[in-house]
């Protein structure tokens, strides 16, 4: 038997407009934990999707346990013993844990009909054997994210996977759950499994991996023994140059209070309380970071602030004016800007040109009047062209380019340009650098700092702790819809913040 569980040799895969994998080679030894490291867009997910049978490579070959194979679809991959724990869970929300685990390979009675009681027993046995605690009868809708991930893992174990691929598994977990996951991975290794861990989190690689292979922009860079390298080494391999971990920041000059949130309660679209008795203050020239694991109310808070969700109780004051029940448009006019988390869904209209996108929030104003009070579209173009120059937005046709054809980084720049051009007093920013390349990330972070130096007050919601630690003057941690602690920069360490993100409202500490 070969020493390698997986050999992917010379894999090339292209999509329209991009070469995702360019002659990549990956060799994973039997019964090791092998990390696959790379930035967003490096090609890690594509490579593993090929391994799991979701795509076929344009060139190259794959060997599993020494035998050359052709993985045409996920069913073939499963038969070969490959299982995948997806980043975005592939779970049917209104099926039970058991139904999800056995989907596609259900135990049947003698008439060929479903036999779910046997299925439940099997799931329980598996859960006990590997220490993955789940309730076989619970519906996916009703269990936590950490439990859902365990269901994903059990799916692979139910089909007897020997090779288990984890795709960015910790993006949605609290620090406690991350530690539990690391334990689970160690246990799986002890049971003889081979693990591939796709991630860009350097700490986790150091915590649990034996070897690490690095991809950069579709190309294979190299493989290292994790014990022999530092996090900085891994980072520079990932990015290709010495990485500046900290952005240069001017000292903070706090102005008057611009935003005052008092005892806010907000329900989400389904009527569940997501923000409970939240109070917070924001001053001009301050960047306030809200740190927390996804799902603790951040989206609902921002939607409540900008007017997309109604506020049940409490008040929001902007520069002394009560905006709690104002419409979205009124808030924009009062000086509230918003850079949403999902830029394609809430930030831009991809069928509109950059000109038309640039004026989404102020097209009705008289400055765009043509003859007889009609709309003069050429005036949009002037604004857009200025923004393109100032923000260095790469376009094919200038202001006439369709927004949908821009890269993620350029789209984000266009959105920020639009918001900033309205000179907001308060700017709400959510996940501004998610999915962007390093150049765009640096530009956007510097621009946010620029706005803050001009006196704009910024609320930054991010799931990346180092982004928060880097950019923010004040850090508030949110957990279960409440602010758990507020600290000035330097008062608290990353570890302490991580712990607070997981707590549930104890030790509340208002920022006063």
């Amino acid at each position: 038997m070969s020493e390698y569980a997986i050999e992917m040799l010379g894999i090339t895969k292209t999509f329209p407009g991009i070469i995702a994998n360019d002659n990549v080679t990956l060799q994973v030894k039997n019964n090791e934990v092998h990390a696959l490291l790379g930035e967003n867009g490096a090609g890690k997910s594509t490579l593993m999707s090929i391994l799991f049978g979701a795509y076929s490579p344009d060139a190259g070959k794959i060997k599993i346990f020494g035998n050359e194979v052709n993985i045409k679809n996920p069913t073939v991959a499963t038969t070969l013993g490959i299982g995948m724990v997806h980043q975005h869970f592939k779970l049917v929300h209104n099926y039970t844990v058991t139904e999800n685990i056995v989907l596609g390979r259900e135990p049947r009675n003698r008439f060929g009909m479903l036999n779910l009681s046997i299925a439940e027993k099997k799931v329980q046995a598996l859960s006990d054997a590997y220490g993955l605690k789940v309730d076989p009868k619970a519906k996916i809708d009703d269990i936590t994210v950490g439990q859902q991930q365990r269901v994903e893992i059990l799916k692979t174990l139910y089909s007897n996977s020997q090779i288990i691929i984890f795709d960015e598994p910790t993006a949605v977990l609290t620090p406690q759950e991350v530690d539990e996951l690391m334990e689970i991975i160690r246990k799986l290794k002890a049971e003889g499994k081979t693990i591939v861990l796709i991630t860009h989190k350097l700490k986790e690689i150091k915590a649990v991996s034996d070897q690490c292979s690095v991809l950069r922009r579709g190309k294979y860079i190299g493989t290292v023994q994790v014990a022999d390298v530092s996090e900085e080494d891994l980072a520079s391999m990932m990015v290709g140059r010495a990485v500046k971990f900290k952005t240069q920041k001017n000292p903070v000059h706090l102005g008057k209070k611009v935003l005052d949130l008092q005892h806010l309660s907000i329900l989400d679209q389904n009527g569940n309380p997501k923000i409970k008795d939240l109070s917070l203050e924001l001053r001009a020239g301050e960047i306030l970071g809200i740190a927390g694991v996804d799902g603790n109310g951040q989206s609902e808070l921002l939607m409540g602030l900008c007017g997309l969700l109604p506020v049940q109780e409490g008040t929001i004051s902007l520069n002394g004016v009560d905006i709690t029940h104002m419409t979205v448009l009124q808030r924009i006019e009062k000086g509230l800007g918003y850079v949403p988390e999902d830029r394609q869904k809430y930030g831009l209209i991809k069928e509109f040109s950059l000109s038309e996108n640039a004026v989404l929030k102020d097209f009705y104003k008289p400055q765009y009047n043509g003859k007889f009070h009609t709309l003069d579209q050429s005036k949009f173009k002037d604004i857009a062209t200025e923004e393109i120059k100032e923000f260095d937005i790469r376009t094919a046709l200038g202001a006439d380019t369709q927004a949908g054809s821009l890269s993620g980084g350029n789209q984000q720049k266009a959105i920020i340009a639009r918001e900033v051009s309205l000179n907001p007093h308060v700017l709400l920013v959510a996940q501004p650098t998610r999915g962007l390349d390093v150049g765009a990330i640096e530009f956007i972070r510097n621009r946010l700092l620029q706005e803050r130096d001009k006196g704009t007050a910024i609320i930054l919601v991010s799931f990346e702790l180092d982004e928060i630690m880097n950019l923010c003057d004040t850090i508030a941690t949110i957990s279960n819809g409440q602010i758990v602690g507020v600290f000035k920069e330097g008062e608290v360490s990353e570890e302490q913040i991580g712990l607070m993100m997981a707590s549930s409202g104890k030790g509340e500490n208002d920022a006063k």
Partner: protein
Amino acid sequence: MNIIHQIPTILMIIAPILITAIGGMFTERSGVVNIALEGLMGLGACTTACCYTLMEGAGYGRYSLVIALLFGAFIGCLFSVIHATAAIDLKADQTISGTGINLLADGLTIFIAQILFHSDRTREYKLGMLPDKLGLYPTVYISLMVVIIGWYVLFKTPFGMHLRACGEHPAAADSVGINVRKMRYAGVLISGALAGLSGGCIVLTQTIQYTSGTIGGRGFIALAAVSFGRWTPLGVTGAAILFGGMQAMGVIATSFPFLSHIQSEYFNILPYAVTLIALILTSGRDYAPQANGIPYEKGAS
């Protein structure tokens, strides 16, 4: 009480709506919206009418009823392939392709009538379906069977479990080896067959021929019953009973003295108005299958 005597009539009117609605439930549960149910009912009705009247005339006896019905179901199924291909393989706008089929059905059915019978309606047949000793038409039993079999298939068989997964989270189904395309085709074809069957039922029990007003919006009422009934067999059955009952009111009104003074047009409006109000009332929470109406793209993780 007079109303007890009317139950067979009421059930007869509910039956076709229920059959189509169960079909609509199957297709939407698999993730495809089928607006073409109205047109498919028309095609099935026209087929059954033509088939039966010709066979009756040729002396094939009572068995031709069954054959005509089956043929109607088959034609409904056949034409639903168009919608399935458009929606599933070509990722077309499902509302447009469905509407196209409705328009096509409108034209094709009368065209066939013109060619076969030189008139804008099919030739009247002499004797359609007859009620049994209880006064119930066979279509009522058919609809009951459709509900029970439909429930069993959807919730007790592996096929049904796979189908429902395709409507909620096709990527999850795909990742465990379920062929989403095949499942969705199955959902659409089942709805086509049931719609065709239902159209045939209408034409053999409620009228004596097929013409352009025969279906009269019942396909859309059935569609509304699916969402009002929250995509479950029990709910859909209840909704179909409600909407069908409203339709029946117009027919049975004449036998109730206090109702017979009301102009028939009010009863005509009733089912549509009730459906509309029902839609408004249920517009809150979304119980629809999560992937309903969204074409499935492989590889979009």
